[in-house]
């Protein structure tokens, strides 16, 4: 808001216009929210995004298909493989390419480990938001990140990098799972499952956390559907929709797992949904390692000139369930070696729209609780 607009708001309405600017410890990245406060109560909230817009959709029109998968890993930087996974699946749908079973299972394995890692970050930063960097929140944050470090070490031994693993290729996976890494994966799953109760006790088990999140930021079903929220935010409002069940991809049609649903729609419900999702993902990871099929991991011939890969003309929309929700890629191809138009349907963008509806009526302290429970990643919002 310009300075004169702020003065008008403050003079005419008696409200305080507070700028939770792009630089703020709790806005989960560069998000700007202009809060109109009456005392401590939020009267109006106007979010402003675009501080991390990097023009990835335009860039996609200039790069070859095989070059593009790593580029998208920088969108939702807390679950990088989810982005490239969705892209690779959409490209495979366009080109009618089928990845071999083992490759698909390895892609799902990395996706689930990144889901657990992303939810650990979410929990730690939720602690920071609710508890403060100089208080109990930091303790939760440190414990969560300690567990996450083990996951990143596992990713490093599997793919060579801790984070932007680059494992998804059009036609399969890039890295194979050997016996030692498979054993490490199972052992780590057991370790994290053992550590989860203490993390849950440190957060949801404390009365203060429950009081801060119960009844805060309730998203009623109609609002959830009309806005189009997705992921744990949607499932916390009682709507049973998970892309892994609705449009199964890779290994998910062969793996049994449950979809946690909560009906309350408040921040506590979303917290419980994500905690249950961690447990479910640990189960999936274990089953993938146990039942990993043998065979090749990549189905196309070795790429002599990756830039020359052409996909047939047409359109495809394929989504994956990233830790934030439905991450969809809509690729329009004109038969050439580069996408004609590539659109990313970002879950954090859809979830963030609910902010102007949720914040008014709450206190300033609820703003951080609500933002934390929505778990936006600005790289995903702005692309």
């Amino acid at each position, binding site marked *: 808001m310009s300075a004169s607009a702020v003065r008008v708001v403050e003079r005419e309405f008696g409200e305080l216009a507070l700028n939770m600017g792009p630089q703020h410890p709790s806005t989960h990245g560069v998000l700007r929210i202009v809060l109109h406060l009456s005392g401590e109560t939020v009267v109006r909230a106007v979010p402003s995004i675009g501080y991390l817009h990097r023009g990835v959709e335009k860039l996609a029109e200039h790069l070859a298909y095989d070059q593009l998968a790593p580029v998208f890993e920088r969108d939702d930087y807390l679950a990088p493989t989810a982005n490239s996974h969705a892209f690779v699946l959409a490209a495979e749908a366009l080109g009618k390419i089928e990845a071999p079973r083992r490759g698909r299972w390895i892609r799902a394995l990395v996706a689930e480990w990144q889901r657990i890692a992303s939810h650990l970050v979410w929990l730690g930063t939720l602690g920071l938001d609710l508890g403060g960097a100089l208080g109990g929140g930091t303790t939760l944050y440190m414990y969560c990140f300690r567990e996450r470090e083990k996951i990143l070490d596992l990713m490093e031994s599997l793919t060579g990098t801790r984070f932007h693993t680059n494992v998804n290729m059009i036609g399969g996976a890039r890295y194979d799972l050997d016996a030692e890494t498979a054993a490490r994966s199972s052992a780590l799953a057991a370790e994290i499952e053992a550590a989860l109760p203490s993390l849950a006790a440190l957060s949801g088990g404390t009365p203060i956390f429950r009081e801060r999140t119960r009844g805060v930021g309730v998203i009623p079903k109609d609002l959830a559907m009309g806005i189009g929220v997705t992921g744990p935010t949607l499932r916390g409002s009682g*709507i049973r929709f998970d892309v892994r069940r609705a449009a199964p991809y890779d290994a998910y049609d062969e793996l049994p797992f449950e979809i946690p649903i909560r009906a309350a729609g408040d921040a506590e419900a979303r917290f419980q949904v994500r905690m249950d999702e961690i447990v479910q993902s640990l189960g999936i990871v274990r089953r993938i390692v146990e039942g990993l099929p043998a065979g090749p991991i990549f189905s196309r011939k070795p790429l002599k000139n990756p830039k020359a890969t052409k996909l047939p003309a047409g359109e495809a929309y394929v989504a994956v369930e990233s830790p934030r929700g439905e991450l*969809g890629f809509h690729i329009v191809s004109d038969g050439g070696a580069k996408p004609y138009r590539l659109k990313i349907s970002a879950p954090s963008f859809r979830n963030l729209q609910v902010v102007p509806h949720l914040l008014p009526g709450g206190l300033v302290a609820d703003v951080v609780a609500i933002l934390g429970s929505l778990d936006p990643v600005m790289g995903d919002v702005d692309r």
Partner: protein
Amino acid sequence: MPAPEIVEALRVRFGAEPAPLGVSLPAASLLAAMRALRDTYGYRSYVTATALERDGRFEVAHAVRDVEMNDTLFVRVRVQRDGAEIDSLAFVYAGAEWHEREILDLFGIAFRGHPDPRRILLPDEYVGHPLRKDFAIETPWGYRP
């Protein structure tokens, strides 16, 4: 794809034709068709909105979903390039508001009746619409991808 009777109903009532991933509508019947999809046919959940420039015209596609029947429908509208204007769905699906702002930001398509037609991703004072085909990516030092 939706059930055949829904496709037939859309064709009869609003002039819809099959299109990739869904149906295509004349621009004039977009608002009425989306209201019918939401209220009568059960497509109550909004997913996303895409735009692209093809053959000198813009296409805007809204994706809506029927969660119970698990069907995602892309409803497409074509408009001419210059002075392009289509009806805004912001009061039919609340989630369309920011998606339409993104399209008007990156493509320059105007949305009639939009409650808040400002740029969303680019700075307010930005000139140009990057996702148009005539907008070239060029850095000051001459790099072209």
